[in-house]
């Protein structure tokens, strides 16, 4: 239900629609009837699901993973309520004080369960998002030792194997770990609270020969009128090969480029865009819009 609210919230942000009030009413109902949120605290039972035909409120009780799931679903829409639910769930798991490292997961044997790993990674993501560095650091340390982070030196691909002897990286668990890796405080909430829509009008890079080349930085600084682009080391077997990328939403007649700290002429105007020539490998580019 909360994820449906996030879907509506994204639609409103991007299309200017007004669907959110339906979810606002539903969330208000849920806080009172399912989540026991009152005066900034959880004061009572938290419902895992409600069956109106029986009727029955089935409680979360010891399965706090479900409560963290609710936090994740509602966080971009209601960050303050999400924090209330998060703090309550953290207290229930006794995560700050004990050696436990996840929901329903007080001993190391259970930690071998892939689902326990998914719950633990969800908490790690939420801790990072909320800036709860103590919990984040504790779980990150555990993840490094247990989730088997792995590089494929042939392809430059990175995955987590979780101690599973399987032909393919386990998808849902890898998705959870990748979310943690991408997390920054407040970044998830910003999708709704402070969405970046200026990017559609600003200088934009395209035509990168991915996965041979990948950009580690690409951002327009509107105040200084410059575009920062950085290429990474590239695919392992492609180092040094010539490559190009293009930049659109620019006026080529007003641009200058500094590549690896030196003024560069290795670019040309093509169909109103800029085409930059370089090689596969780590390079920095600063494109000034004069």
């Amino acid at each position: 239900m909360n994820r449906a609210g996030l879907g509506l919230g994204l639609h409103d942000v991007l299309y200017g629609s007004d669907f959110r009030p339906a979810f606002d009413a539903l969330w208000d109902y849920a806080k009172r009837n399912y989540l026991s949120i009152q005066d900034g605290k959880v004061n009572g039972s938290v419902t895992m699901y409600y069956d109106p035909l029986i009727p029955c409120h089935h409680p979360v009780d010891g399965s706090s993973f479900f409560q963290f799931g609710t936090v994740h679903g509602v966080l971009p829409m209601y960050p303050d309520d999400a924090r209330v639910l998060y703090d309550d769930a953290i207290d229930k798991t006794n995560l700050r004080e004990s050696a436990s490292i996840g929901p329903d997961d007080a001993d190391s044997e259970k930690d071998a369960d892939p689902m326990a790993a998914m719950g633990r990674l969800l908490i790690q993501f939420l801790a990072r998002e909320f800036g709860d560095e103590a919990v984040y650091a504790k779980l990150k340390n555990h993840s490094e030792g247990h989730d088997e982070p792995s590089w494929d030196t042939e392809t430059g691909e990175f995955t987590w194997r979780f101690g599973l002897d399987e032909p393919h990286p386990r998808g849902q668990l890898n998705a959870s770990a990748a979310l943690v890796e991408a997390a920054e405080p407040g970044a998830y909430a910003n999708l709704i609270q402070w969405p970046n829509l200026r990017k559609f009008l600003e200088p934009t890079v395209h035509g990168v020969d991915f996965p041979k080349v990948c950009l580690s930085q690409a951002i327009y600084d509107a105040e200084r009128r410059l575009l920062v682009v950085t290429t990474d080391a590239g695919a392992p077997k492609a180092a040094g090969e010539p490559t190009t990328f293009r930049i659109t939403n620019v006026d080529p007649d007003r641009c200058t480029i500094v590549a690896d700290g030196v003024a560069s002429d290795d670019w040309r105007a093509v169909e109103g865009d800029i085409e930059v020539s370089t090689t596969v490998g780590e390079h920095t580019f600063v494109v000034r819009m004069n």
Partner: protein
Amino acid sequence: MAAMVRGYPATSDRSRGWLRYLYRKATTPDNWDKDGQPHPHWDDVSGEPMTSFPRFDLVRSSYAIPLMADRTPAWREVYGRILDEFAMRYTGYWAAVDWLDQIGDDPRREQYPEAWYQVLIPPYLRGKYDVPGWTANGVEPWGLQMDPIGADGNVFFKGDFLIVLGLFLYVTGDEKWNRPFDIVRNGADTFSWTHTSIAEHLFSQMSKRPEGIHCGNTKIWPL
């Protein structure tokens, strides 16, 4: 130390390595229609009984994409391509296979693993109640409804699809998924929707049901 321009955000080495893997995974052709089969690299085992279906791999894998794309807002083409591949697969039969195949009450009600009874089912309903994750399409009060979006329940399917479509638009600015497209595509069970018509439908359902919309029939989840 990796090259970078100080003072500006960057993606991590690991995130870019993951991006390379996910791109290969998302762009490897497969067929999610009824006569096809998702590639085995899509996770249909994690989270049984509730999320052990391949669409949950699509949804969970979507969440990291906008966060990475927001680190490189001036370069988003690869992130958008991946989300487009996710959305395309979400229209297939296999994305809704739980709703389309789990008809009526679960015949395994009395043979669930003990852990499911302990955590997921009220004790007094043991053996007489469908475990969460069994969608029970066709049971009262709604009856059989083969459109996984138009159905009265199945809110997690349509809600998650809205997220994938919203994240695609957020990353790309491309409104392609607001043109009519077909889902399920199984003869008479072919249903046409757009990004906005899904949102309108969900808004209408939420407005009519203050207590919430069924996820799998007949359960309402705050999750």
